[in-house]
């Protein structure tokens, strides 16, 4: 007796699907999901970089937990790294060294994990700016924007916890600074710091195990939940898309989830995984063995946080030492740049969709995106924020830059302070003008047509430039095409002047003869 009916290989997918559907009756909802349409624009894939790095983080992180012990028990190192042999350290640091030197494949896993963390937060940031600059956060997608802000802040916290648990000197220095930042909060600071650290810094060894469980369970669980919600909302509300031919507020044009987009997404996951593995294999990151075990008296020059906290470090470095003592209460200078300003930044970012709607009195649904040039004020503001973040980030590494480029550290600090005041308004103004200029050029092409590059001399001697109108012209030679916020052709070959071109980035993926034949067929040219 046969257990399974005999099926031809070609019918396997159908038979498999039937097997599942007979038992779970999921054909209807699955069809909806398989038919979900993804618009084809590269900027829609930035969030995917973050998503795939997150998957890589979960995979490599699970591997690392098998060998890491977040214990603060003092041990004497006896592993293979000779320069630390016989040195007293915590078990947490010793097991981090073991992962790096004595666990097979441990070092590359650690390195991929760390690189993936940087790319994860980096990609989230870039994705967030894409959403901002194209207005994708507008009604009805404000909630997904808020979830995104939650993902970014939790991602930063998660990264900081991961940075702290190996208990090397860099981790400890970071925790020392975090402890100082918490202490600086008025009224509750001391209590909160003592509660988190289990007493005066560094506490009785509580902080590393606490950060560990935060890093491997609490925050990842919330992140997974938020990622799921982020994507569920994306499916529910459908994708936004750039305006263009056939695209309206009521449809989405692009590729279906299955099979087209699934293949692309799967391939992209492999590429992101490959890039991260390449980084982990080729570039050394966080050489904890050089930092040594954390001791209170060990603070290395060039101790920096990872980049996603680096901008806050920059703010601390630039902020003057303005300590206030009012009503018998001291507020240390570090409170403002490390607690208040980042708090303001994230609050404003979270509220932005609502603020913008209020200022522009916009109550409509928006499924079509805006090109950055079409909203100069918002684009200028975003560019301004980018410039602020860059100045702060550079200032966060100003000691390294000062040392490498032989600049005075004091000059770097003052350049950062002055730059923070002067550069952002300039960036706003320049960006605003660039946006208007780009719009103007689009409008000019719509009214006058494309520049052909042909100069004609008229019989009476006048030179004119020949334009190719994009539509019917009136008696003045003007076309009356509506400005739609969609891309406008700017070159003759974009409207087929040079014939059809085979597609392909580095080399053609189509044969020229095929393309020409297709072109002819489209033009209805059955001449033979």
């Amino acid at each position, binding site marked *: 007796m046969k257990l399974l009916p005999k099926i031809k290989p070609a019918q396997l997918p159908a038979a498999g699907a039937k097997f599942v559907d007979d038992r779970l009756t999921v054909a209807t909802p699955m069809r909806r999901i398989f038919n979900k349409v993804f618009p*084809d*624009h*590269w900027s*829609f*894939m*930035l969030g995917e970089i973050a998503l795939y790095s997150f998957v890589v983080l979960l995979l490599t992180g699970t591997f690392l937990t098998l060998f890491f012990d977040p214990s603060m028990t003092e041990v004497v190192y006896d592993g293979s790294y000779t*320069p*630390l042999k016989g*040195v007293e350290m915590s078990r947490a640091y010793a097991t981090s060294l073991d992962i790096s*030197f004595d666990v097979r494949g441990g*070092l*590359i896993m650690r*390195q991929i994990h760390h*690189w993936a963390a*940087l*790319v994860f937060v*980096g*990609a989230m940031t*870039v994705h967030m700016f894409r959403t901002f600059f194209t207005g994708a956060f507008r009604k009805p997608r404000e909630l997904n924007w808020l979830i995104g802000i939650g993902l970014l802040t939790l991602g930063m916290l998660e990264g900081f916890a991961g940075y702290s648990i190996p208990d090397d*000197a860099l981790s400890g220095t970071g925790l020392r600074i975090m402890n100082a930042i918490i202490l600086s909060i008025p009224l509750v600071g001391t209590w909160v710091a003592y509660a988190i650290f289990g007493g005066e810094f560094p506490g009785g060894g509580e902080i590393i195990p606490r950060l560990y469980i935060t890093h491997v369970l609490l925050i990842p669980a919330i992140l997974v939940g938020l990622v799921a919600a982020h994507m569920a909302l994306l499916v529910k509300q459908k994708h936004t898309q750039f305006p263009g031919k056939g695209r309206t507020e009521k449809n989405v044009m*692009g*590729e279906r989830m299955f099979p*087209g987009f699934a293949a692309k997404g799967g391939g*992209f996951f492999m*590429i*992101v995984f490959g*890039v*991260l593995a390449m*980084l982990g*294999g*080729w*570039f*050394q*990151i*966080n*050489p904890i063995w*050089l*930092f040594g075990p954390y*001791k209170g*008296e060990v*603070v*290395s*020059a*060039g101790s*920096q*946080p990872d*980049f996603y906290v*680096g901008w806050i470090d920059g703010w601390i470095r630039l902020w003057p030492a303005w300590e206030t003592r009012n009503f018998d209460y001291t507020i240390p200078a570090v409170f403002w740049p490390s607690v208040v300003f980042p708090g303001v930044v994230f609050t404003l970012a979270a509220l932005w969709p609502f603020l913008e709607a209020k200022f522009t009195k916009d109550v409509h649904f928006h499924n079509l995106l805006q090109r950055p040039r079409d909203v100069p004020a918002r684009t200028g503001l975003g560019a301004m924020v980018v410039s602020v973040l860059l100045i702060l980030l550079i200032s966060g590494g*100003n*000691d*390294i*830059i*000062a*040392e*490498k480029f032989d600049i*005075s*550290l*004091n000059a770097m600090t003052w350049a950062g302070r002055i730059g923070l005041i002067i550069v952002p308004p300039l960036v706003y103004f320049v960006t605003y003008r660039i946006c208007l200029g780009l719009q103007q050029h689009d409008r000019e092409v719509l009214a006058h047509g494309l520049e052909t590059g042909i100069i004609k001399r008229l019989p009476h001697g006048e030179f004119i430039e020949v334009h190719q109108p994009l539509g019917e012209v009136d008696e003045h030679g003007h076309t009356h095409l509506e400005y739609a916020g969609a891309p406008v052709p700017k070159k003759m070959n974009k409207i087929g002047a040079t014939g059809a071109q085979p*597609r392909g*980035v580095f080399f053609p993926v189509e044969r020229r003869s095929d393309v020409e034949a297709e072109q002819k067929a489209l033009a209805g040219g059955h001449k033979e």
Partner: protein
Amino acid sequence: MKSSVFAKMGERFRRAVVLLLALGALGGLYAAFSPTSTAKDGVNTAADEATYVREGQKLYSEGCISCHGRNAEGVTDRGPSLIGVGAAAVEFQVSTGRMPMARQEAQAQRKPPVYDSDETTQLAMYIQSLGGGPEIPNGDLREGDMSAGGVLFRTNCAACHAFSSNGGALSSGKFAPTLKETTDRQLYAAMLTGPQNMPVFGDNQLTPQEKKDIIAYVQSMKESKDPGGLGIGRTGPVPEGLVAFLVGIVACMFAALWIAGKS
């Protein structure tokens, strides 16, 4: 016309090269057979020492006197007194090329030394003869316990020279230099004499054995390879962030452009 000038110049050049080669060969022979050419270890007798001090004084009068004064007592706003700084300080400053200084600035820079090792010894012995001071011991300065040296390095040195000994910034253009090219003797001398902005680590702060431990650690760290791939400067999270964006994010974005283009 032009070509004949060049020909003449070529002829002159050839002659100069031959002369240089001959002189070099002669000097090399002399150096090989000369009994006093083995730096300070060769100074055995009091007579040797006297010669060295005399030669050192000559060099001093040519190269150092304008800033440090006729009797090494120092010149206001130019150079400090050298009385009592010891041979160790002179050897450090001169052998790293920091002295003679190119110009007055925040800090003297390391550059190719002006004096060879023999001349450096002569200068060092002249200054030593003026008022004594710390001297670098002879022998293997690297004979120490690397692990103990690492602990001491991270506690005493890393705050300025950074965990990787690649250096770090100080205020107003001053800096803790990289130890990349620093020799054992220079490391020892620096600890002993505290050049420029560096504190002095006398034998009461770090015993001679502890200094050797530190040297053993620093030199082995410099020679060690990076097990994780390219070290990207061993400078911590700043270059790491840069690589994450310039390599990681950029590569992924190019992939995104490529994939989105295929529809």
